[in-house]
């Protein structure tokens, strides 16, 4: 008879057991490569004893998530990803600017470019990630300039991220506009469009397609291409001669973070040279923002960077207008 009445107690014990002893974990929105995010978890635990939990979302998705949760944020900190969404998040009051102790040791040009909106984490430039096997098989030359992408011989051999869903895609769009002026840029895009096999949802996906040989040329961040090449894919990273745009990857403190204290500890920790050096070990070859962090030898170095105007192209109005134009004038074109 007695045993019949034991089960609720068992349930209570089971239910109560995990509660209590734990410290509040830090919840991170993580936008760079998954491996980087994954590498942070044990390192942070070792350094601080705190648990780090993350969800990997591309920067556009991460912004969407922050907006959705504006009333009651679940995340404490947003790590990595293209700068524009970080800037928009700051302007919309989703994140707050936190000046880390190491602020003055960050690369000054990056600091200057973003102002006091978010913390620069790394810098990475747009490049062409080229599958040389596919090109050789077809006897095609490597593309050297943005205008080469419009060459008819590359028909259906191109992949680039969709600017609607990917920060990388928007950076490419903005780069072209800054290089050629808006109207000429769209003319060029309409010709490139015919060669595009696929606009991908995420920024790193074109390199995947190129790596697997689904396309020959991927337009995306060069450092991702290097990573894939090191994994064994027959890839090569090139930079357009006209100059190229770049991103300043961000690190932001979420406004109203449930664990603000933990988030700040994370930010301070993540900016240390040792932690920044972690990225190269797991195949992320951006140029780190801390001046003392060694630049990984594999990191691609573009010869010619444009003067990317983050302030103009980071505003929602400009973004909205360019995207609308892209959706109206480029996407419907037949291929």
């Amino acid at each position: 008879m007695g045993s019949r009445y034991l089960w609720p107690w068992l349930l209570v014990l089971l239910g109560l057991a995990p509660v209590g002893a734990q410290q509040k974990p830090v919840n991170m929105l993580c936008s760079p490569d998954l491996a980087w995010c994954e590498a942070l978890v044990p390192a942070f635990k070792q350094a601080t004893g705190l648990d780090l939990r993350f969800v990997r979302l591309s920067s556009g998705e991460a912004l969407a998530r922050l907006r959705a949760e504006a009333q009651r944020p679940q995340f404490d900190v947003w790590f990595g990803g293209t700068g524009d969404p970080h800037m928009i998040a700051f302007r919309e009051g989703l994140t707050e600017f936190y000046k880390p102790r190491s602020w003055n040791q960050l690369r000054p040009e990056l600091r200057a470019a973003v102002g006091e909106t978010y913390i620069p984490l790394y810098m990475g430039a747009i490049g062409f990630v080229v599958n040389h096997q596919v090109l050789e098989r077809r006897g095609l030359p490597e593309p050297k300039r943005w205008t080469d992408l419009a060459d008819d011989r590359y028909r259906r051999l191109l992949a680039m991220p969709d600017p609607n869903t990917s920060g990388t895609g928007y950076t490419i769009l903005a780069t072209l506009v800054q290089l050629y002026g808006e109207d000429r840029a769209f003319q060029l895009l309409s010709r490139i469009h015919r060669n595009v096999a696929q606009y991908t949802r995420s920024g790193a996906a074109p390199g995947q397609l190129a790596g697997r040989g689904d396309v020959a040329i991927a337009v995306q961040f060069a450092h991702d291409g290097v990573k894939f090449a090191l994994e064994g894919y027959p890839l090569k990273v090139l930079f357009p001669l006209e100059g190229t745009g770049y991103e300043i990857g961000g690190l932001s403190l979420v406004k109203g973070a449930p664990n603000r204290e933990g988030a700040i500890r994370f930010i301070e920790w993540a900016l240390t040279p040792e932690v920044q050096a972690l990225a190269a070990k797991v195949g992320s070859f951006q140029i780190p923002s801390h001046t003392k962090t060694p630049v990984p030898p594999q990191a691609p170095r573009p010869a010619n960077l444009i003067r990317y105007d983050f302030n103009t192209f980071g505003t929602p109005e400009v973004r909205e207008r360019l995207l609308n134009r892209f959706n109206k004038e480029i996407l419907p074109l037949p291929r």
Partner: protein
Amino acid sequence: MPAPRPLGPTGLPWPLLLALLAWGLLPWERGAGASGPASGPWALGGGLAFGLALALALFQGRVPPGPRSLGRVGVGLLQGAGLGLFLVDLLTAEAVGPGQAAVTLLALFSLGHWLAGSTPTRDPLLGGLTWVAVALVLLFIPYPLWVLLRTLDLGRIPALLADGRFLLLENPYTPASEAALALAVGGVGALVGLLAARGRRFLGLGVGLALGLAVGLALFGRGALPTSLLVAGVVAPLATLLGLGFALLEYSQAPPWTRALLRGLALLPLISPPFILAFALILAFGRNGFVTHHLLGLDQNLLYGPLGVILAQVLAFTPVAYMVIRGTVQNLEHSLMEAAATLGARPWRVFRTVTWPLLRPGLANAFLLTVLESLSDFGNPLILGGDRQYLATEVFVAFTGRYDPVEASFYGVVLLLLVFLVFFLQYRWLGRAAFITATGRPSRGGGGPLPPGLGAVLAGVFLLWAVLTLGLYGSVAVGSLVKLWGFDYTFTLRHYQDFLVLGLPVFLNTLKVAFYAAVPTALLGLFLAYVLQRQELPGKRVLEAMTLLSFAMPGTAMGVGYVLAFNPSPWVLTGTTLILVLALVFREVPVGVRAGVAGLAQVDRSLEEASATLGASPLRTLARVVLPLLFPAFLAGLVFAFVRGMTAVSQVVFLVGPGNLLATVLLLGWVEQGQMGRAAVMSTVMVLSLVAATLLLWPLNRRLDVRLGGLP
């Protein structure tokens, strides 16, 4: 007029009053942006106090007086308190005001308890449970849908309809006029309809025009609507035809190994995440695919786009069609064919004049189900869709990529309308009964031998399909063991080592979540089935319709509904494991209900009546007679809910949060990011474990496949 004698604990609803008091005393969250939901000692205390009060109420008046009754009341009190504490703890997960939820539910329970207690037919406890179940169903099925609809801003609909991502018919950049072409096809359709429908020309004209326009739209238009229609329009007939062929093959005089292979292979896509086939197709048929590149030396990229999605969906949904049609073929009376044969009809004539007309309802059912599946499919278009838009993925992209809840809900509503249209057609053509035809009593049906030519063709097609399916799953398994698929086929265990670190915790979490979801799904399903079948309840039909609603809703629409409904206060649930569990539970609860109804059909009413006349209370009857007899049904529901929970993507992709990532979502991310090796490991582990789970319970679940058959 004899007054109804109040039964139950007492005539006074004092537990109810107490509950209401506790509820009112809670420090409810006021205003937006407060630091957190109300919890803390007040709510906890209230919940506990209520648990105690309830236990007291339940045991008062029920225990026969005697020396031991005091002890039993005490035990009851402890039990009630324990349960209250457990409930509170269960709900403490980060977000929801635990006391609020617990006390609200308990108050509802108490209300039902009291109301049922004052009528003699219903057991108070059952009544209380019914109220709680109804409240939960209301909250988690129609409410998110309502929020989704409410989000839709009517003023923006014209712009959204005109958006090229939704529908682009007249492309200004092409020389041809797509609208004219579509209209022409519509005209042809109208003409055909007019000629085909003798007698009811007007109807024929209308249906023909509508179908023709839809076809024209699908062929010439761009954007999510035409693409989804195109894919569904190709996949459904193909899958239905293949399904029919396989079903006929199974029940003809095919060699026994065909049957075994057929059943095994048909189950595989049903119990694996739906987009694994898409992933495998890339491995086999992509530009560097093993078949297309290494074997055939082709250099093509046709897989990304509608073609690839169609291929993946045909492979994935043929089993669904097969399972549905199988039920119909099973019920074919063999003697009818024999009668036709003795009347001198040749095999082909028998097939055409007897078999085919009998099969038609099953075919229509399978057709519409595959249309539904194809429309709401999320994973395959996401992976293989190329840069075409699809309704189900646009819901997701609009919400997470462009963060536009209005647009997301617009796509969700369009999808929902299409699904309702399909259900409406099904209802009109087949009537309600057709939904529930899957009886699963294997009889000596099956229609007998096929015409010789047909049999050979079917066997050939099936072999091809079997080789393809096996090859695809096999390539996933192999892919998990090679360094870099397509380039470096040296053997490695590196991906498995990675999996141990990165994938295993997520996989285990998924197991946990799926199991957490499966138990309440099966229990709630059984309970609702019992209430719907055996209890008098006003509004029973509405309740039934509501459970079906969640079943019809495309997963992405439901997912967005959940995010929109349960992120703002007071239902702050997003990001918790609880919401994942809830989403799964209420998504799969119709399955549980169906399993329960099927099980209850086997339990004769007189058994319950006998138990009642022997002095057992309704609850005791339920526990001692009904539940034990329903155990196989419960188990079937449990396994099925578990499998569906493990493989669910579309409804949870919005809901995963930090620390509760699910395997399917991670897998989708890995595939998207090109981590093919890891993705292959995860797929292999998932498929193997689900196969193992199903096989383990197979002897107990002979009817599982039939139930699977009826599901969109």
